[in-house]
């Protein structure tokens, strides 16, 4: 084979590599292709097409990543163009790595899960469409959506984590004094009073909505719903858990909120290189970000908060964040 032929067979569209999602493996010329599956929702037709591509170009298996992606393993770089084309560019996109906004994760939300309080799937799709791949110029940026305080997605481990929340209110006339709300409340926020009607202690409420769900007469009703927002989480060598910045953020304001956080991150991390949002918040103090967000979301941002909390790994240097 002469040089010209060789060049033709190994030419690839480097544009495909730019977004990331192609990860070099140990084996010569082999890469993992990380697919973009916001909220982990996969239509059966897409699944079939991915299986066909994996079958044709991979080595017999895919990997389901911890952030709900499907990863094609052992893909030869010569096959990149074909893989991207056969996945169907408009149907199945490749995910990102590097210093960009990553694919949002989400649980099933309220669609079919009776526990879900908000539409996390819609949130994940919206944020993926509007913010995925946005360069942060510093580090990865992860967003996650949980439908309720069970928080299966572990929302506070994300840079910005969202947890579904509702605020309950009692309509006395419908109450039949069955006492189920008081029994269901895990936080002791409801107790049956002298009149055999529930008494509510708002400060103890976690916004889980169990009282509303269990009430057989709809005496307890939802009067407000939205997201509890925690910011500054990360994992790895020096894990941090994100802390509370907003409550009952309306679902429609999610993209705007994340964009505001990204703007603050970009500004404050300037010159500091490869550093996560949580470490910047610790460095600047939580009040700086709080004030920045309060200006734009005055109804949702909390009055005061604490910086992202260090999780003790008990190995090596351990707790020092910076």
């Amino acid at each position, binding site marked *: 084979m002469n040089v010209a032929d060789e060049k033709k067979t190994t030419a690839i569209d480097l544009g495909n590599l730019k977004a990331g999602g192609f990860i070099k493996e140990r084996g010569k010329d082999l890469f993992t292709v990380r697919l973009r599956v916001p909220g982990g929702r996969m239509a059966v037709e897409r699944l079939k097409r991915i299986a066909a591509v994996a079958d044709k170009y991979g080595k017999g298996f895919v990997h389901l990543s911890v952030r709900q992606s499907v990863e094609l393993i052992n893909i030869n770089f010569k096959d990149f163009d074909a893989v991207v084309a056969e996945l169907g560019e408009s149907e199945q996109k490749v995910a990102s790595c590097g210093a960009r906004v990553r694919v949002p994760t989400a649980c099933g939300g309220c669609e079919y899960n009776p526990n879900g309080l908000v539409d996390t799937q819609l949130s994940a799709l919206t944020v993926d469409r509007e913010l995925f791949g946005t360069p942060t110029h510093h580090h990865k940026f992860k967003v996650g959506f949980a439908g309720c305080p069970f928080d299966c997605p572990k929302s506070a481990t994300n840079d910005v984590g969202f947890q579904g929340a509702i605020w309950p209110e009692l309509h006395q006339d419908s109450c*039949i004094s*069955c*006492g*189920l709300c008081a*029994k*269901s409340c895990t936080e002791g926020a409801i107790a049956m009073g002298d009149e055999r009607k529930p008494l509510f202690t708002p400060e103890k409420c976690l916004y889980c909505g169990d009282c509303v*769900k*269990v*009430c*057989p*007469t709809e005496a307890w009703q939802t009067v407000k719903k939205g997201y509890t927002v925690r910011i500054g989480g990360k994992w790895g060598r020096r894990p941090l858990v994100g802390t509370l910045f907003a409550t009952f953020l309306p679902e429609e304001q999610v993209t705007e909120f994340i964009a505001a956080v990204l703007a603050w991150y970009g500004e404050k991390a300037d010159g500091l290189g490869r550093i996560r949002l949580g470490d910047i918040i610790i460095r600047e103090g939580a009040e700086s970000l709080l004030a920045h967000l309060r200006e734009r979301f005055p109804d949702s941002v909390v009055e005061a908060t604490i910086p992202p909390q260090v999780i003790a790994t008990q190995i090596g240097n351990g707790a020092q964040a910076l």
Partner: protein
Amino acid sequence: MMQTVDLRGVSCPTNFVKAKLALEMIDTGEVVEFLLDDGEPVKNVPRSLKNEGHKLIGLSEVDGHYVLTIEKGEEL
């Protein structure tokens, strides 16, 4: 005479399914009593039957279990 269906010892969602089937056997407007265990059964079944279109007449605790009184609703 009002029927009583004892669903104590029956776990979710079998208790709900049995309650649903029992209600299918009676006429609209008839009232039936279900005995339910404390815990998950009483937290789930009343609400689920209500969502099926039946009317909750009463729910009270008796000797550590619950008595649920339901009036059969229109067929949905």
